[in-house]
């Protein structure tokens, strides 16, 4: 008995490994949160001086005069907001039906090799760098749009929207497919046994049962489009303008920050104004992602 009692407080290598692993995993887990909070604090701090100082809120949201380098600078971001919104909106218009269709095909119709190949292809599409997409927009879509529609310039809402749509498609397809796959097969079986066709099963059972996941997929796609910078900078024409047709050039919030920040003086009004755009972007994407998250949680609760 004494031998057993003596062994009770033994701490061997496995005990220390376990402790060390726990600490490491904790640091790993917490660091993502710390970094994101850090970025948020930094962006806010850099922009806040301007927000409470030189910023005229009314001008910011209602004027299209973005003249940060003029002798009498004005910071009207309306055109930039509209630019981002129009490009993202057009992108979703093209991308949502395509992505949901692709997800439906992969989840409900494709089998075996076709299914696996398609999934890999979609995931590969997500790995293409955005500057490559921008290049496609400038050197392939640009002349193509000029030729097909007979317009003087092919860089604009149409071009950037299509590129952005293609960029947002993989994430939407993947998330939507996950949502469709999460629908228990017993539902499909029950509906089929009642005499529903494949399409009726999808339309009346699978889509209603996965609608939250599908909505989350779309929202994540919107978030992806909203935050994209390089491709939009290259394909949108980057002209401050309220678009009246899909061929008009626009300028996006993200692209403005990317193209101007390098030329500003640290701490100047221009610098602060760009960070204010950053805060705006951050807030919008945060709200979109949060909504998507809440929506996804909504499914699990049911």
């Amino acid at each position, binding site marked *: 008995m004494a031998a057993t009692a003596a062994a009770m407080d033994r701490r061997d290598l496995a005990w220390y490994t376990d402790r060390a692993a726990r600490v490491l995993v904790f640091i790993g887990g917490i660091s993502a949160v710390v970094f994101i909070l850090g970025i948020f604090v930094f962006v806010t701090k850099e922009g806040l001086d301007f927000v409470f100082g030189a910023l005229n809120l009314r001008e910011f949201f209602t004027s299209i005069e973005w003249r940060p380098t003029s002798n009498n600078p004005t910071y009207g971001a309306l055109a930039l907001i509209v630019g981002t919104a129009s490009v993202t909106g057009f992108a979703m218009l093209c991308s949502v039906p395509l992505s949901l269709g692709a997800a439906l095909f992969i989840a409900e119709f494709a089998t075996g090799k076709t299914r696996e190949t398609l999934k890999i292809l979609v995931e590969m599409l997500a790995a293409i760098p955005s500057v490559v997409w921008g290049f496609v927009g400038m050197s392939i879509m640009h002349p193509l749009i000029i030729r097909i529609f007979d317009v003087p310039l092919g860089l604009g809402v149409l071009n950037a929207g299509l590129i952005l749509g293609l960029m947002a498609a993989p994430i939407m397809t993947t998330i939507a497919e996950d949502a469709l796959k999460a629908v228990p097969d017993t539902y499909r079986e029950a509906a089929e046994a009642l005499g529903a066709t494949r399409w009726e099963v999808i339309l*009346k059972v699978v889509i209603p049962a996965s609608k939250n996941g599908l909505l989350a997929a779309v929202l994540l796609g919107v978030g992806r489009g909203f935050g994209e910078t390089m491709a939009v900078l290259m394909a949108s024409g980057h002209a401050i303008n309220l678009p009246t047709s899909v061929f008009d050039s626009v300028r996006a919030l993200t692209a403005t920050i990317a193209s101007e920040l390098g030329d500003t003086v640290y701490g100047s009004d221009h610098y602060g104004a760009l960070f204010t755009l950053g805060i705006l972007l951050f807030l919008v994407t945060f709200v979109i992602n949060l909504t998507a998250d809440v929506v996804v949680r909504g499914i699990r609760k049911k």
Partner: protein
Amino acid sequence: MDSGRQDPGTVEHGDYAIETRGLNLWYGDFQALFDVDLGVKRGIITSMIGPSGCGKTTLLRTCNRIIERLGYVRTTGSVNVLGHDIFGDDVELVQVRKQIGMVFQRPNPLPISIRENVLFGFRLHEARLRRVTAAEEDEVLESSLRQVLLWDTVKDRLDKPATGLSLEEQQKLCIARLLPVKPEVLLMDEPCSALDPAGTEAVEELIWRLRGDYTILIVTHNMAQARRASEECVFMLLGRIVEHGRTEELFLSPEHSETADYIEGRYG
């Protein structure tokens, strides 16, 4: 001789709701059914018993071709339902399934309201043909739920999700949703296996009430259930039908030693 035992072969063709001839079925390379000849008579309850993996469920699921969802299933032979070869080119699967309702092992109501569950099949089949009025739907809803003795329990929460019901109520609902399209045949795959004894008793009683109006083919692991709730009984073993006859006789004086051994619990 076996007094009063009806040899399935002597009954006239039209008396069968389901009739299989030389039915073989493979899952990939594995053969699950061997040369099955089965005649299920109209208007009575036929139960299928046998040890796990003997092909009862496979045979049941072949009758409405739901087995083909798996994708790697191959069959030879024929299955006639109400006189039509369901593998034939002139038979539409949707119409076959309209005639044959199916109840699954685990209650599987759709994730929609009780009302929509009951009306799901009705809307599918009737809406293809004509406009259905709301009053008609209400009538169908009530009569279906009354037939399964569920109306009084759920009449105040018809628009609540069906998944909130107890398992027993869910299984009754799954039976109720078959009735509005007026099927001839009901296939039941161990409908009580997920239920507690009280639920089992209630659902069995319900199945017994439906006798006569429908031809019922029911798979069960529970021999007491087969004995209580069916008029004819089929004993299957290793993908073959060993014995098929009137339930009481199959249990009292089985012809084959395998049947006797199984009934007496020597294997299973």
